């Protein structure tokens, strides 16, 4: 019965966003489509465009450009989109350092920014902005969840992250909830490809659990090397370490790894099933968490645009903040700092029909916000 109701509201929301908007809407998407990080940007774009396409709305234009993962280029494109293309909303940036280059100045120029992934602490607390929304999470969330989970099962953790702000946020987030002993806290070089020295330390540390935050290629390299090391300590990490974009490259070495995530392909709700089916039909691959986040970002924008004109920032912002969407993630609403309040789950890497994917194990947090919202005065 409950399911049916969900399906009905979904249909309703689809049909409302299918209506013509009061005002045509122009969205600028800046994301990484070339170079080593292009996989994430492509999933972001595809997830976003899937929602736009499903809406069938003709009053909406999306201009997309590649930032090549360079902050200066992202700024240039943002300037162009704002000054030349006259977009109303910017979105799509994957990386925190690019977001920090673009978002503060975009909102200063009166444009909305809806983040599909990057969520640095710097924009969640005192420097929050009523034009800045984050549809993904706050950077610390998934790490906090792993800290909470580690409390339940482990006594002495070895924690590791790259030596850059997101890495520090990660370990800070983990430690915020983890109350046990730390065997070591190690920071590696950004872009490091060999983890032999760190794995040797893990072996010698006497830890009973390992938490790593190593996005992209770094995580692939770490997991492959760890699997060969003969060290038998369980590895866990935030969801992006084992998301669909990297799993095929890690291979069976990832099997059994525990991670935290706000979504996994096996979620049992109508929105998730529909999203999964649509995405696979459209692009012939499994979506990653980035695709879900971008899909929701697009849904959020559509939901607000159906009810308010983007030219009226207060009204549009208020509609956005209602988060009147059916997220594949299930429960989704915005906190006072316009970052999500959502459930966070423990997932495990399994092999299903010969394809590596994530399976939901248990719920770690219910309606989880972030630690910075209290400093936000909107």
């Amino acid at each position, binding site marked *: 019965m409950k399911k049916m109701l969900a399906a009905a509201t979904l249909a309703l929301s689809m049909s409302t966003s299918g209506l013509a908007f009061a005002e045509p809407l122009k969205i600028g998407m800046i994301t990484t489509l070339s170079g080593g990080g292009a996989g994430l940007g492509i999933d972001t774009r595809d997830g976003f465009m899937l929602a736009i396409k499903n809406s069938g709305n003709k009053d909406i234009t999306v201009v997309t450009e590649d930032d090549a993962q360079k902050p200066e280029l992202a700024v240039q494109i943002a*300037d*162009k989109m*704002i000054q*030349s293309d006259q977009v109303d909303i910017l979105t799509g940036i994957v990386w925190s*350092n690019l977001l920090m280059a673009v978002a503060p*100045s975009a909102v200063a120029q009166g444009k909305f920014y809806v983040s599909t992934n990057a969520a640095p602490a*710097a924009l969640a607390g005192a420097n929050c902005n009523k034009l800045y929304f984050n549809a993904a999470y706050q950077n610390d969330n998934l790490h906090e969840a792993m800290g909470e989970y580690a409390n339940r099962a482990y006594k002495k953790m070895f924690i590791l992250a790259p030596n850059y702000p*997101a890495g*520090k946020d990660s370990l800070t987030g983990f430690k915020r909830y983890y109350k046990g002993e730390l065997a070591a806290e190690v920071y590696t070089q950004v872009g490091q490809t060999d983890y032999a020295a760190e794995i040797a330390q893990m072996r010698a540390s006497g830890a009973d659990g390992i938490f790593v935050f190593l996005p992209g290629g770094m995580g692939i390299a770490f997991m492959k090397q760890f699997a060969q090391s003969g060290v038998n300590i369980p590895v866990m990490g935030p969801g992006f370490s084992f998301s669909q974009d990297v799993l095929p490259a890690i291979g069976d070495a990832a099997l059994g790894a525990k991670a935290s995530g706000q979504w996994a392909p096996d979620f049992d709700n109508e929105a998730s099933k529909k999203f999964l089916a649509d995405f696979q039909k459209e692009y012939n691959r499994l979506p990653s968490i980035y695709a879900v986040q971008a899909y929701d970002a697009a849904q959020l924008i559509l939901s607000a645009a159906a009810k308010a004109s983007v030219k009226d920032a207060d009204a549009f912002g208020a509609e956005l903040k209602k988060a009147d969407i059916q997220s594949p993630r299930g429960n989704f609403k915005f906190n006072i700092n316009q970052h999500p309040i959502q459930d966070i789950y423990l997932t495990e890497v399994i092999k299903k029909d010969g394809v590596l994917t994530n399976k939901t194990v248990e719920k770690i947090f219910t309606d989880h916000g972030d630690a910075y919202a209290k400093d936000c005065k909107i």
Partner: protein
Amino acid sequence: MLSRENLVNLVLAATLLAVPLAANALGQPFYVTLATRIAILALAATGLNLALGLGGLVSFGHAAFFGIGGYAAGILATHGFSGDPLIFGLPGTNQMWVIWIVAVVVAGLVGLAIGAISLRTSGVYFIMITLAFAQMVYYFAVSWPAYGGEDGLSILVRNQFPGVMTMRPLSFFLICYVILLIGIGLFALIRASRFGSALQAARQNEVRVATVGIEPYRIRLTGFVISAMMTGLAGALFADLNRFVSPSMLSWHMSGELIVLIILGGTGRLFGPLAGAALYVAFEYALGGLTERWQFFLGLILLVVVLFARGGLLGLLAGKARHG
């Protein structure tokens, strides 16, 4: 009577001024921003051109100075905004001219240290040791938490210049344009001066310079430091243009791009860096809008220029370079 090169130079300078003025009048402020970017990159490359074009010092580490200038702007502005003292109780500032002086001085000092060691080597070793120093600065910036590390540092409000509304794109462009012209003028003066003679002679024939009693090392070190200062100043402007500074300004790709600008325009030519910057930014902008694969075609164009259009754009337009 203007020489052909001077005519080309004049046209370049006039175009760079006319396009943003026209764009502004037509309500297309983005092209003003693009022109500002060109002016700043041209200034950075003009700085490098002093070392590379005149002195023959192929520095693969000038991003270090560019980034240091940028961080000078970012750090001073951050402290100016928050009111926290910087060091020794000195305050930050949002005054561009103070920032410029600091950027130039700091870049010069770092240039002195890097140059003093690097200039003991030559040829490929020089290329590589300058790269290594820049990487050192880069990794420092990435992993030093105080000023944002990899995430970089936002400048919330563009810094001020007395009597100018710096937030208006055209005003800021004019500031950069004037500084660029001063930079190019300085380059021309230095090239024609006694110091410039010695610097260029040291590139052509080091032994000859020593044999007349001039120490090539001192000449080159001085040239390297001046070059670092000019590139540092450009970095400070670049940070203000983007209202943001991050380690990517220090990356080896940035060093490579600065070299690209010079060769694209014409090595050692007065207006080479400007021609190169205009061409490069135009390619980047046009190709980026056309195809996701733009980096491939950018590479292809660069390759064709190196292999078949020696002397760069100015070589093509104004013929071979002449020395007095």
